[in-house]
């Protein structure tokens, strides 16, 4: 048990199994940093956790307005958990807009910590409020902890050389300190982080540390709360070394690892786009791993540069989100036609068009599987969570080089920006898949194929192997051909090659009985919610099984047999039923029931449980 060395630390310490906390404030209030710090500290403390950042696309939407509200939800637990939680136990609201936007999600009787310093007439006006929600009964039924954070921060920093405006910016660390006290978290990880973050501005380090400590002490001295809580470290995580991980970082690492396992230089062509940009940024910082990154002039140039790199014998990679995928489709066709390895990463966001750039959706699945001119098949893989993204990214690299094909790796906003503990893999356990370039001109044909259906990879610079290649249809020699039979044959080859990828991927495991009334079949970032929902349903005495797909095109082998033992297969997804359509097309004999949601927010466990019961009750 953590011992709190604070004067007057004699308030009761109550143990909780899990807590869901949501930080909400203006997008300039630093709520994402606050949430991430709480997450990191809880991870190091030894909790299991899951996070849900929820922020506007605008960097600084008009201050104090409802569209400008930025939120960060986190569940931390002494048990193995799968989701960031449906309803927060505690809401921290830094201003009126943050309060009214988030209050509806708070669980009945939950706690609201509210920054009363930000509830002046003008603040209420910005939030389009006629009355003060602190006084009009809005908060009836909740436990309200009023703290004038604005004033307390300035008090604490009275001796700081910073200007008032800069002092005010420290209020998120005051708030964080307050929450650290309430949930008995250590301050050290954040203090260390501040020293690193503001290395060049010691006065900022000092001010933020003072604010953090002032918040921590306030919880105690001012007796704002009736007591402290503690969420003990979990003993349910398997033994191993852990690290708190976000999806995009795991993908960036997986690309470095995948290219190394292929024996190739990874060359990324990318163009900044929310929420994929951090992959480009991370890889750009990995230059000492031999990574080459090019921030190109647009999405098309980004994929074309990656294809050019593959032509030269490197592993071409491009990362983007939905609108960027739309722009890249013609170039994907070139890589499919010329048969070059290429890893294409789509961090999906809500669409269509620009859609909602910072909100989650899984609506690019049909685009990934079918969205190109001509019969243009590519393997499609989807990450499910930050902790499987590393391994699946390596697998995308493997398929790309072994089958000489572009591979689309899907992720989404929830995985990209959500965090969870990642049990670090034993790197030695991965089987490398080194590429062997062909150098022997004897009897060589550009489109001769091996047992996987893949052509040989010859790189420029190899003597006596000069070839010309492109997007025009070509024959086995590599010469341009408009021959009818040849086009049929080449189309078949490309189709069969991608279908053959199924030979190299595992059949997903079933969670629960291998037959019954209902199978929940998910893909992508719904995995945690579906796992939780199935567990909850079982606690309620409902028999339901669950399976999660990571390799979506081609489907793994054995699905037909598994599906045949269930009366119904429910497919929850954050789109209008895209996987359901593919499943019905491929395996029309089964009873697929779509369950869709496109609000820009993940499913809630409760709504999935309700749907399960609803389906089973018929």
């Amino acid at each position, binding site marked *: 048990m953590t011992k709190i060395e604070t004067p007057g630390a004699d308030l009761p310490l109550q143990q909780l199994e899990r807590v869901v906390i949501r930080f909400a404030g203006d997008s300039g209030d630093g709520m994402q940093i606050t949430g991430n710090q709480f997450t990191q500290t809880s*991870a*190091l403390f*030894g909790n299991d956790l899951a996070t849900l950042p929820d922020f506007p696309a605008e960097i600084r939407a008009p201050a104090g307005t409802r569209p400008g509200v930025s939120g960060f939800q986190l569940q931390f637990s002494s048990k193995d958990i799968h989701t960031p939680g449906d309803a927060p136990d505690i809401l921290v609201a830094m201003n009126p807009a943050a309060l009214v936007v988030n209050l509806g999600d708070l669980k009945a009787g939950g706690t609201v910590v509210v920054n009363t310093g930000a509830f002046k007439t003008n603040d209420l006006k910005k939030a389009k409020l006629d009355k003060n929600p602190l006084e009009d009964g809005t908060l009836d039924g909740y436990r309200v902890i009023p703290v004038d954070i604005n004033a307390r921060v300035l008090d604490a920093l009275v001796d700081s050389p910073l200007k008032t405006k800069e002092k005010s910016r420290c209020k998120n660390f005051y708030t964080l300190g307050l929450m650290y006290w309430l949930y008995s978290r250590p301050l050290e*990880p954040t203090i260390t982080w501040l020293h690193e973050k503001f290395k060049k501005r010691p006065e900022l380090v000092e001010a933020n540390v003072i604010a953090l400590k002032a918040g921590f002490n306030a919880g105690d001295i001012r007796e704002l709360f009736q007591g402290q809580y503690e969420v003990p470290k979990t003993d349910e995580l*398997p*033994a*191993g*070394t*852990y*690290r*708190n991980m976000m999806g995009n970082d795991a993908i960036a*690492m997986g690309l*470095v*690892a995948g290219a*190394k396992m292929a024996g190739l230089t990874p*060359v990324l*062509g990318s163009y900044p786009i929310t929420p994929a940009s951090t992959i480009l940024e991370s890889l750009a910082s*990995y*230059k*000492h791993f*031999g*990574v*080459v990154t*090019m921030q*190109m*002039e647009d999405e*098309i*140039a980004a994929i*074309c*540069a*990656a*294809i*050019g*790199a593959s*032509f*030269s*014998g*490197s592993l*071409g990679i491009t990362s983007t989100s939905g609108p960027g995928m739309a722009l890249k489709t*013609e*170039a994907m*066709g*070139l890589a499919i036609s*010329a048969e070059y390895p290429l890893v294409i990463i789509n961090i999906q966001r809500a669409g269509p068009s620009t859609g909602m750039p910072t909100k989650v959706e899984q609506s690019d699945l049909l685009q990934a599987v079918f969205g190109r001119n001509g019969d243009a098949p590519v393997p499609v893989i989807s990450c499910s969570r930050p902790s499987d993204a590393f391994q699946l990214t390596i697998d995308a690299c493997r398929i790309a080089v072994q089958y000489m094909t572009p591979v689309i790796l899907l992720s989404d906003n929830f995985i990209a920006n959500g965090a969870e503990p990642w049990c*670090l*893999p034993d*790197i030695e356990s991965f089987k490398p898949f080194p590429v062997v370039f062909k150098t022997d001109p004897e009897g060589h044909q550009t489109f001769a194929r091996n047992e996987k259906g893949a052509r040989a990879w010859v790189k*420029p*610079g*190899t003597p*006596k*192997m*000069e*070839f*010309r*290649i*492109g*997007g025009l249809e070509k024959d086995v020699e590599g*010469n*341009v051909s408009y021959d009818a039979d040849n086009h049929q044959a080449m189309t078949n080859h490309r189709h069969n090659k991608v279908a053959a990828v199924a030979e190299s991927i595992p059949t997903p495991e079933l969670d629960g009985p291998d037959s019954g009334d209902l199978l929940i079949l998910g893909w992508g970032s719904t995995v945690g919610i579906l796992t939780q929902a199935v567990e909850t349903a079982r606690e309620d005495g409902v028999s339901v099984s669950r399976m999660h797909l990571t390799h979506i095109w081609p489907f793994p082998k054995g699905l037909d047999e598994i599906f045949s033992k269930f009366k119904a297969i429910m497919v929850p997804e954050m789109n209008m039923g895209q996987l359901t359509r593919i499943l019905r097309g491929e395996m029309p004999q089964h009873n697929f029931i779509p369950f869709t949601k496109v609000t820009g927010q993940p499913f809630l466990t409760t709504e999935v449980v309700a749907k399960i019961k609803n389906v089973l009750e018929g």
Partner: protein
Amino acid sequence: MTDTATTTLTKKDFVSDQEVRWCPGCGDYAILAAMQKYMADSGADPANTVFVSGIGCSSRFPYYMNTYGFHTIHGRAPAVATGVKVANPDLSVWIVTGDGDALSIGGNHLAHILRRNLNVNILLFNNEIYGLTKGQYSPTSPVGTKKKSTPLGSVDRPFNPIAFALGCNATFVARSVDTDAKHLTRIFAAADAHQGTSFIEILQNCVIFNKDFYNKVVDRSVRADMTVDLVPGEKIVYGADKDKGLRFTASGLDTCGVDDAEVWDPSTATVSQAFAISQLDTDPDTPKPLGIFRAVDAQIYDESVREQVEEAVSAKGEGKIEDLVYSGDCWTVG
């Protein structure tokens, strides 16, 4: 060993086994022949040479060169070539494109490759027409061009490819003509020697859709008076008797006698001076400038990208996957 066995290649070693399928009389034939000969004469290694193209008549060029070749998608050759060259800076990379490919659909990529100064050579075949789609006006066609898609004449002003390249801060900018093999070869050699992006506009005859569009400039009967060749180290003079010259003035460019003519140095002339020359033929009575407009040194993109990687490796040591994964704040369970 004092005597290294070297095989001298001839033009035919650079001729691929593919049947050339341009229209009979197309200017592309002459450019192809000049390039194949230049490659042989300059001692190029076919295995180390890559031709990258986009889409259009000119973009079939790589199929006919017995080197490595990549026929990509419309307008994107500069982007593909960027990946090719950055992934392997040892390759000699040539981009073949046309006025539509480079300046319409691919205008963005052309601007950026010139800005970045990737160490490649770009050949832009300019015939002022869309050939492969059967004769629509192009972004270099003069205002009033009457073609199938502009029955009343085009109303949009054309690009001047040289001015475009200069505006993008290109480090090597030149113009040549398909019918003048000697001139072409000299420009190829200068472009090949230049470190950075070499941009060559080649006036090229489309005998089907824009036949002899350039005859008022390059026909033998008028050429001496209607073109002026910018030769580094030589005076800017023209005319059948080389009796007319050009000199820079405070307001731009002026005609003058041979004695007063400027000695041209594309490595020291300002962009403004090169730009002023590029605008000469906006007046139909003044000659069209050919030759080398600009040849200056600047940071080279592919080299710089690779240098950053090499410097990071030497500063931090070559990273291992274990170091990458097992970094940051870790904790142990069990």
